[in-house]
């Protein structure tokens, strides 16, 4: 096949190029059929099964044809609460297909996907991997009609009106808005290109690490590992090759601050990575960009080129690597597997990536925000950062605020800010529950709004979802459990099988079939999954259930109407319906 040869010629034929190759095929042909996989396997010297292992792992890769125009509807809870169903129905009616299928002519495919990072402008969809936010029924009709008439997506987007800031630049051209609502005094200090790099160039690697350590900066992905220590550990491992990887796989539902950082702060991000490479002695950098943000790839590459032309990255090439739809790849070791062209399954730790990371070499994986903050710390000194925040949590934290608020968007806060202050700032509407840190974080009720954002009270990776009193707690929890069931990689037993069991148990409570003993089961079974799972996904997936049961037991107790433990709910009519139907009764 001529096309395949061209793609391979461009990307190279080693396994670590597999995902970029598969992306090109998926975008070009609309699917990666078994035949294509067989052809590809011969050219890459892999077995067809090895290709299938990878194709079948990622949400955006498909063996079946997904249509000339591939439409993915964001299925996050925030979208659910912003008339997602109406949008979905409009798509279905206009295209005359159900979600999960392709129109008979093959022009459109309609699917669902986890949060695409647009919770501040929900409901949103990806059309041909370009996000289109703030949808209305009218807009959907206009977009589909235009596409049907052969108008190019780029032109449609232009006609809908471009977003603010760099979103309207030549390299992005999107409808997305940044929605930066609260600018604090650290991150938003004016950037001056190359300043951080030039300061760092006067410093020794040890010095850089010392400053970062003294600042108290902790990783912003959620786990909160001290950044200075991570760099130090990677520096100390002797190796010819070391890597710096930026984790831009912002997959936690409700988070979108990295999207904005990548749009507006890409220069600072690159400076942070370059500084890290000097501290650690790394020779190559990667930005692992989630597939949902592929619309930012040109913009990032343009900046990289600009840095290269300015002579900032002579010996430290940075490559943008596109993920393909898998929440688990936000876990650093799964991300590295994915970068190597494999299924994104978390590795066994130890060894940690700082010892054996990408291709077995010492690797620093940090979140987008971490690199951006590191660059600012180098510019303004460690005290400018460590003097902010609390004892356990130094500095500032970006929050992505969404849900039932008048002003969704990005907020810069010092750590230690109280929930009630945040709710005031964003003009929350009758706030009743808040999910801090996304589905893997903590659900709190309005009785706990005096709690604070910090590593020793409410840690967070940045997601902050506000729910008003008209929202059903169980709808929220079901959405989260569906998410974890979909996103579990399937590697370990408790996460693969346990999340399904937890979801079923929740459904039992939600539908009024539970008994009092089922509430103990939620605690016990949640404990099993969180204690025995292999990686952070399973360790945290029971959190929404466990934390809401703890803080709002009355919601669960009220959902239990039948306390008779001897007789469980069994619908004999439903169970015999198939039999009666068979006998035409």
């Amino acid at each position, binding site marked *: 096949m001529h096309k395949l040869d061209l793609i391979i010629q461009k990307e190279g034929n080693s396994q670590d190029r597999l995902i970029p190759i598969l992306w090109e095929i998926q975008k070009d042909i609309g699917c990666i059929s078994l035949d294509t996989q067989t052809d590809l396997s011969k050219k890459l010297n892999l077995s067809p099964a090895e290709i299938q292992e990878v194709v079948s792992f990622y949400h955006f890769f498909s063996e079946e044809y997904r249509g000339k125009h591939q439409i993915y509807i964001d299925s996050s809870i925030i979208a659910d609460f912003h008339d997602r169903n109406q949008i979905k129905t409009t798509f279905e009616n206009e295209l005359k297909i159900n979600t999960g299928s392709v129109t008979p002519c093959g022009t459109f495919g309609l699917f669902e996907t986890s949060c695409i990072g647009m919770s501040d402008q929900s409901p949103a969809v990806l059309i041909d991997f370009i996000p289109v936010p703030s949808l209305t029924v009218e807009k959907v009709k206009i977009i589909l009609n235009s596409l049907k008439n052969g108008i190019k997506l780029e032109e449609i987007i232009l006609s809908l009106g471009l977003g603010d800031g760099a979103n309207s630049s030549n390299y992005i051209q999107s409808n997305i808005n940044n929605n930066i609502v609260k600018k604090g005094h650290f991150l938003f200090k004016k950037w001056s290109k190359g300043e951080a790099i030039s300061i760092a160039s006067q410093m020794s690697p040890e010095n850089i690490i010392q400053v970062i350590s003294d600042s108290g900066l902790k990783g912003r992905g959620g786990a909160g590992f001290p950044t200075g220590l991570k760099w130090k550990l990677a520096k100390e491992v002797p190796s010819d090759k070391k890597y710096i990887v930026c984790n831009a796989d912002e997959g936690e539902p409700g988070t979108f601050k990295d999207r904005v950082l990548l749009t507006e702060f890409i220069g600072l991000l690159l400076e942070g990575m370059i500084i890290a490479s000097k501290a650690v002695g790394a020779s190559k950098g990667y930005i692992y960009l989630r597939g949902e943000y592929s619309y930012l790839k040109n913009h990032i590459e343009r900046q990289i080129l600009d840095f290269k032309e300015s002579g900032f990255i002579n010996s430290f090439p940075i490559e943008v690597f596109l993920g393909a739809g898998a929440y688990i790849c936000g876990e650093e070791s799964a991300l590295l597997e994915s970068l190597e062209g494999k299924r994104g399954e978390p590795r066994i730790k130890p060894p940690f990536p700082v010892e054996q990371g990408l291709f077995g070499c010492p690797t620093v994986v940090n979140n987008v925000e971490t690199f951006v903050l590191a660059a600012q710390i180098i510019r303004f000194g460690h005290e400018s950062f460590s003097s902010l925040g609390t004892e356990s949590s130094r500095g500032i934290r970006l929050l992505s605020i969404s849900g039932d608020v008048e002003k969704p968007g990005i907020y810069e806060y010092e750590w230690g800010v109280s929930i009630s202050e945040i709710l005031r700032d964003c003009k929350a509407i009758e706030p009743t529950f808040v999910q801090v840190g996304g589905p893997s974080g903590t659900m709190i009720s309005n009785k706990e709004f005096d709690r604070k954002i910090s590593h020793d009270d409410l840690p967070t990776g940045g997601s902050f979802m506000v729910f008003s009193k008209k929202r059903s707690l169980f709808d929220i929890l079901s959405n989260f459990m569906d998410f974890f069931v979909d996103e579990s990689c399937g590697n370990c037993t408790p996460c693969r099988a346990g999340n399904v069991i937890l979801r079923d148990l929740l459904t039992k409570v939600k539908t009024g079939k539970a008994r009092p003993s089922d509430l103990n089961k939620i605690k016990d079974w949640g404990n099993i999954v969180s204690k025995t799972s292999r990686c952070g996904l399973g360790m945290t997936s029971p959190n929404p259930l466990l934390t809401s049961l703890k803080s709002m037991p009355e919601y669960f107790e009220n959902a239990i109407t039948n306390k008779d*433990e*001897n*007789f*469980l709910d*069994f619908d*004999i009519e*439903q*169970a*015999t*319906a*198939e*039999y*009666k139907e*068979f*006998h035409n009764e």
Partner: protein
Amino acid sequence: MDKKVISTISLAGCFGCHMSFLDIDLKLLELIELVEFNRSPLTDIKTFSKRIDIGIIEGGCSNDENVKVLKDFRKNCDILISLGECAIMGGLPALRNHLTLKECLEEAYFNVPTSNHNQTIPRHEDLPQLLDKVYPCHELVKIDYFLPGCPPSGEIIWQALAALIKNDKLEISKRLIKYD
């Protein structure tokens, strides 16, 4: 001490567990001194005539009749035991759980070599109605104890009964646990 009252039933099972019950051999003589049997295939008594101390269920629920009987047992028994794999997890009858009823019935009545080619599948109001799948007993009612095995050995049955009759805590030796 009053004799404990025992009832047994086979739902969607093969009576193998009941056969195994009889495998406690000479202990049967001992048992009969300690208990009396009420509703059970062993006595051919069809209805409960008093409150039951220990009810033993063989087989899972495959039809509406099974469901009715199981609920009746729960109502009338203080302690309910799931005896054997079918009661515990559906057992071999549950092999049909991933097939549709149509597939099952057509296979059983039309496609097998021993079919009478009558091309009819019986349906009568007196015939129990099949459920969409075979259900383990504890998905319908609370089950107090589980004795695994296909069938469970006479020994495990004896050990369990001996403990329950004496109102002891039921502890089963590891060596008696098996699933086939």
